[in-house]
């Protein structure tokens, strides 16, 4: 359950690039394909995020990338008002959410909560992914969230 958009929520910020050691290339390729791919250990089966070269549970170096259901629950949130980057001047408040994925061993992901920037945010609320396709060098796709 997800959708996509071409509308940039916070335009002008630095764009993401895969790490130069290739660690998270599958993640960023996945977002372009509108899939939420995270690491899962081939030995013990646990999901892991953010990515690392080793499974933090069993210390296996044999990690897979799997697509997980692009939904979760709001674990925490904040509403920045003060613009810390020139691209945010006059932008007004926006919402950052920390989303927990119970179906993927409770890994957490950071993104923006789309919709009214002044909306009341409820911890525990179910959310789903909005893949935000952006033009860049190269083009990239962010993982945003909206309340279901």
């Amino acid at each position, binding site marked *: 359950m997800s959708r996509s958009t071409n509308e940039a929520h916070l335009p002008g910020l630095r764009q993401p690039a*895969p790490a130069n050691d290739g660690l998270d290339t599958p993640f960023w390729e996945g977002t372009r394909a509108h899939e939420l791919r995270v690491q899962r250990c081939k030995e013990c089966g646990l999901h892991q995020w953010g990515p690392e070269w080793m499974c933090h549970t069993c210390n296996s170096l044999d990690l897979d990338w799997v697509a997980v259901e692009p939904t979760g629950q709001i674990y925490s949130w*904040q*509403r*920045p008002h*003060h613009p810390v980057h020139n691209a945010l001047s006059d932008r007004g408040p926006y919402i*950052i959410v920390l989303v927990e994925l119970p179906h993927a061993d409770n890994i957490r992901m*950071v993104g923006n909560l789309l919709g009214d920037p002044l909306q009341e945010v409820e911890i525990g609320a179910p959310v789903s992914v909005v893949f935000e396709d952006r033009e*860049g060098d190269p083009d990239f796709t962010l993982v945003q969230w909206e309340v279901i």
Partner: protein
Amino acid sequence: MNDDYNLRGKVAVVGVGETTYYKHGQSPDPEFVLVLKAILAACEDAGINPKEIDGFCSYSNDRNDPPRLANALGIPELRFSNMQWTSGGGGAAAAVQNASGAIMAGSANVVVAYRGLAQGQFGRFGRSGGSRPVSGAAAYTLPYGMMSAAQMYAMRTTRFMHEHGVGRGAMRAIAMACYHHAQNNPRAVMNGKTLDAETYDSSRWITEPYRLFDCCLENDGAAAMIITRTDRAKDLAKAPALVLGAQQSGGHRSGATAENATDYVTSSFKPAVKHLYEQAGITATDIDVVQSYENFTGGVVMSLIEHGLCTYENADEVLTFDNLRADGGKLPLNTSGGNLAECYMHGLGLQIEAVRQVRGESCNQVPDVKVALANAGPMVAVASTALYGTEETA
């Protein structure tokens, strides 16, 4: 704890010093000069010749490296250099810990723990710029507008308030206590600027749940502490502040990226505090005065709970303005004004204030201090915490 492997009382802070503290961008001196001036001030306070320094400890990738400092100071033997790998100011007490360890190991005799910041020269902590692509851990947060320190630690506080129902009253009281104490401190950047409850409540949001006065300052300056063997301290200018214990900790996966620390609602002090009190042979009730690092007030509430100074249940009742003030409070907190109102010298000022309380030299002196706590870092991947005491406590 085996005494042979415990520094308790064997190492002491014998000198402390700082430059004038400036608002960011207002230092007339380059950062390196600020550090040199702070080291000279700490040496003068100790009554020790700067050329006796043979070790240097700092943290947070301080730009002023020991070889250059030793060269400028004309140090004859540079025996020990140490950089604490931690996030932000979480290494302030760890710098004292590492210095103490070097002395205990016989690696150096006189070590300076120092930190210099010229945010005018090198850029403000509260601003983020640039347009180049970002990779690694920052790629999971920065494109979503999460890049400043306040933004990196706000969601821990949101979750903390949600889980424990502790909150706004304690955060307000902490901010007010810091500003209250700064009024008696001529070094404080906010000396002359008071803060009442109404001003706090009507201040603008930086990022909810942090208001302007929940956030530390941005400053230029430098601070330094001279650390040596306690038996050497007898010959020096001032009564020593003995290091009773100093520890650092990151819990399970505390450094996990994209906010995936196993224990998310923590100031990161839980493991360190257990070891600190065991090392020092004290409990929380023995502590007379507390300097608790304020990057953001919400982190201080968690820190005080994790140091056993109040509980999740009674935090709002204990952490009141009346209790936190040096003049009559039961839990005097941040008696120099701290990072909120004295200066944000990445927390080294809080370590120095703990030493001044032990010496009886604070601008807001708490009567009869025997044990003083000073911690650093809350909510960062690795936090550190230290206890200082008078000679009679060791």
